[in-house]
């Protein structure tokens, strides 16, 4: 069956909404495809099994007490488990590895200097993230970097509504070209080009696996906003990486299925 939508030219963002909605109205009825899905993963299975890290707030508080009492060198041990988290947050703001390292180191030192202010009312990771984000944003402002162009090509009808640019991408990117480093770079760039409010939620939810509630608390927004922004962020990253994402990837640790509408 010829899919009219696939051949339809969608010329510009301005006319896109009409084109998209028009395509829906005129596409011929698609027959059910049950039975042809083969090994497609069941939609009832959560996308990833995540083992949450053990609640370490108590351990952290004990360490913090010792550090404040004079065992300053323990601070490095306190923050070692959070290094990757700090770096992940930093790189999405400043975008270069070198700067992200600088920001990470600066943020951790600020945490050291202000350790006495941490009272355990939130998780230590929440506190560290807030410091990191502040430091990264401060650096951006200080350098007077030009406002990054945010990817915003989907049509937004109202807050939370988002119309994807395309449903399937017929171009093929040979997956051999996507070595892990290139993949990471492409992914970091795609995420870094999100507007900050979407990016922060995506990193916390999907990189650091914070719950909706934890994310809401860390960023000081409602849970509804977390969900709305996460939807937006995920769809935009997907749009950016579309050439590969409905195609076939391998990171070495997992293989992503080829997906073609037919």
């Amino acid at each position, binding site marked *: 069956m010829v899919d009219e939508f696939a051949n339809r030219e969608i010329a510009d963002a301005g006319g896109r909404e009409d084109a998209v909605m028009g395509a829906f109205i005129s596409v011929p009825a698609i027959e059910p495809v049950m039975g042809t899905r083969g090994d497609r993963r069941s939609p009832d299975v959560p996308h990833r099994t995540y083992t949450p890290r053990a609640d370490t707030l108590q351990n952290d508080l004990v360490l913090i007490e010792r550090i404040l009492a004079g065992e300053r060198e323990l601070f490095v041990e306190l923050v070692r488990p959070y290094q990757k988290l700090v770096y992940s947050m930093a790189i999405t703001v400043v975008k270069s590895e070198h700067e992200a390292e600088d920001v990470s*180191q600066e943020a951790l030192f600020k945490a050291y200097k202000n350790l006495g202010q941490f009272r355990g009312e939130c998780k230590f990771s929440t506190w560290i993230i807030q410091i990191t984000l502040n430091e990264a944003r401060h650096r951006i402002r200080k350098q007077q970097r030009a406002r990054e162009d945010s990817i915003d090509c989907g049509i937004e009808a109202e807050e939370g509504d988002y119309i994807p640019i395309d449903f399937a991408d017929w171009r093929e990117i040979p997956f051999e070209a996507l070595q892990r480093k290139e993949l990471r770079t492409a992914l970091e760039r795609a995420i870094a080009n999100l507007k900050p409010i979407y990016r922060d939620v995506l990193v916390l939810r999907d990189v650091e696996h914070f719950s909706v509630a934890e994310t809401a608390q860390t960023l000081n927004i409602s849970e509804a906003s977390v969900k709305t922004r996460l939807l937006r962020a995920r769809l935009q990253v997907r749009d950016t990486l579309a050439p590969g*994402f409905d195609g076939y990837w391998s990171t070495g640790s997992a293989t992503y299925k080829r997906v073609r509408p037919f």
Partner: protein
Amino acid sequence: MRDGNMIVEISCFEVWKRLSEYVDDDLPPDLKIRLRDHFARCQHCTALLDGTRNVVALIGDEQAFDLPSGAGQRITSALERRIAEDRETAG
């Protein structure tokens, strides 16, 4: 509406609004069923669903966001140095 089936159809537009929650298995049962039914009949939304799942899985992959080699050590060393300097100046 299908014969003999009480599932009420849902539009693609509505499906997109709920896609992220569907990926997280965070929908009430009746809505989940309606989306699942939609995916069974709509290849476009299914492609979008699987593409989004791929994005989430890729982002969540520990390897994708590893510290660059040596970064952890550099950060630690710089931090140790600054802490030592700070102790000296503080007396």
